[in-house]
């Protein structure tokens, strides 16, 4: 399964670019195109869209060759695949920051964001995550709120 993805990677990559190019190009034609002399808002986006779609075709066309991985020593050794627990934690952390930032204030938002994200790492325990979250919250209150005056109240009044 993974091997197959490796082999077909460039087909997907090219297809994605074609998709983006066609979509953006379609949207561009809904704006005024104008002329070369007086370009409308749609002109330049259309050029870019055509270019992107064209490059997508090029990527598909050159796919499947025996192109080696040009990354060489830069490869990080990451596995391909989604770590569900980690992903859920990152999403939950960011969403918690947005929701609590809007309704509860910076301190709860910070704590929730760090705590939820930390729980996503399998090596963290509830306790270590809570300690880390408390530490960052304290830092945020002192440095970001008092020091740099970030415009979000520490606790929002009810």
């Amino acid at each position, binding site marked *: 399964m993974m091997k197959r993805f490796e082999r077909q990677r460039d087909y997907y990559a090219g297809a994605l670019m074609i998709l983006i190019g066609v979509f953006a190009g379609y949207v561009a034609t809904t704006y005024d195109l104008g002329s070369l002399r007086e370009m409308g808002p749609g002109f*330049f*986006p259309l050029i870019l869209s055509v*270019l992107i779609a064209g490059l997508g075709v090029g990527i598909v066309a050159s796919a499947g060759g025996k192109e*080696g991985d040009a990354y060489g020593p830069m490869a990080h050794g990451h596995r391909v695949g*989604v770590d569900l627990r980690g992903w859920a934690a990152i999403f939950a952390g*960011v969403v918690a920051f947005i929701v609590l*930032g809007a309704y509860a204030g910076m301190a709860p938002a910070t704590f929730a964001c760090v705590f939820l994200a930390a729980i996503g790492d*399998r090596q963290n325990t509830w306790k270590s*995550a809570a300690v880390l979250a408390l530490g960052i919250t304290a830092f*945020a209150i002192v440095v970001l709120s008092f020091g740099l005056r970030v415009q979000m109240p520490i606790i929002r009044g009810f």
Partner: protein
Amino acid sequence: MFWTSLVDLAHGFEVALQPHNLLYCFIGVLIGNLVGVLPGMGVLSAVSILLPLTFGMQPVAAILMISGIFYGAQYGGAICSILLNLPSHPPHAVTCLDGYPLTQQGKGGVALGITMMGAVFGAAFGILQMMFLAPYIAKIAFSFQAAEICSLMLLGLLAGSTLAKGSPLKGVAMTAFGMLLGLVGTDTATSIERYTFGHYELADGIELVALALGLFGIAEFLRSVNNVAPVNTAYTKLKFKDMRPSKAEAKEAAMPILRGTLVGSLCSLIPGTGPVIASFIAYATEKKVSKNPEKFGTGAIAGVAAPEASTHSSIQGDFIPTMSLGIPGDAAMALLLGALIIHNITPGPRLIVEHPDVFWGLVASFWIGNLILVFLNVPMIGVWVRLLTVPYRYLYPSALFFICIGVFATRNSLFDVGVTLVIGVFGYLLLLLRFEPAPMLLGFVLGPRFEENFRRALNIAHGDLGTFVERPISAFFLAICAALIGLQIYARIKKARAPVKLASTAFD
């Protein structure tokens, strides 16, 4: 010219030595060094997080600090590569090849000492180059009009996307896509909202910070979470006195440092060839001229000295096109350009004349900052080495929070935090498909300015596309563009004949 540069530099030192500027320069290089040392932290995300926090600061202090992060991280990145064999900072990936074997032989300290020598020499050369070349280049660029600026930008974009690592086709596609993202929002010429799909929050465009942190922060976390190899901390006990190279070792490093510096400074003059490429070329050159090339990869001093010197000379030289032409060579400089714009400094050839405080203050701060970095790294190496052992499970939750608050603080918008998450997921998809996100940032920053100049150039020429080739300077830039594309095609055909991997040729 020589003399005026020195007078201006003296003024720059006055600016850079003002206590608060000095403090921010120090904070910048300190954070840079820290980010460089911590495996799994990127320079681009560090700068993006701090960018919104500089809004309240004076422009000079902000620019000094942000620049400090860039070159400071190069000092830290070398430590990470040599002692841990972790190429978490691309310019130092090559250093792993010989740096880590040296560490295994118990000579990690010496490798770091050599690195410091190379860093100081390379940086000094790069700064001198900037001092004397940037004002000249800016002077030439004074006469540029829309058509010339357009062609020059095209050259920068093309070089930035084809010469970077990975497939050139994908690189150009990413640049074009980045330019498209840069157009999101209200069109300045006609006040029509483009690609906002009814979200009024997008009327001012996608926030640069949100894009950078989505691509280089969240996307990276999504890939790395529960997926990083534990750090091997076997070699992280190191003391100050281990760093002193013997006389023979210093002699062995001298010529490679000189050659590496020259390679780095040449690379920085070609737009788009940043420190990463410079370090690769320096390594390959060293291997070619060496009397015993078989030693490379097993702990050759030259294999550490040359790439490190070239990285540092090209990272300082990288500032030249950004500050003198307003055209950044890579994603890092694109961010710096974004910072300039945020602080109401118009980048371009007039910057040096109109904002001498910024330019000469920056040059002076480079001298000061590199000096601080040597003092930070040489006597205090033990502290930094201990930081290498901070585990990822503490780093990434903290970094995620700083991303959220950083994006929020840019324009007090929680909507932007959501945008960052979306960009992050999309960025992960791009990484999975082996697209390099860095050219996207370059396109994003230059896209709107390219469109503006493209429109203006054609308006002046009454819609005649010939204007780009009829104007000699513009034609010259376009000729280089064509040569770049030709070179890529030639390399491809050559590669198809002899199926050698691209990366491995750099080491043969």
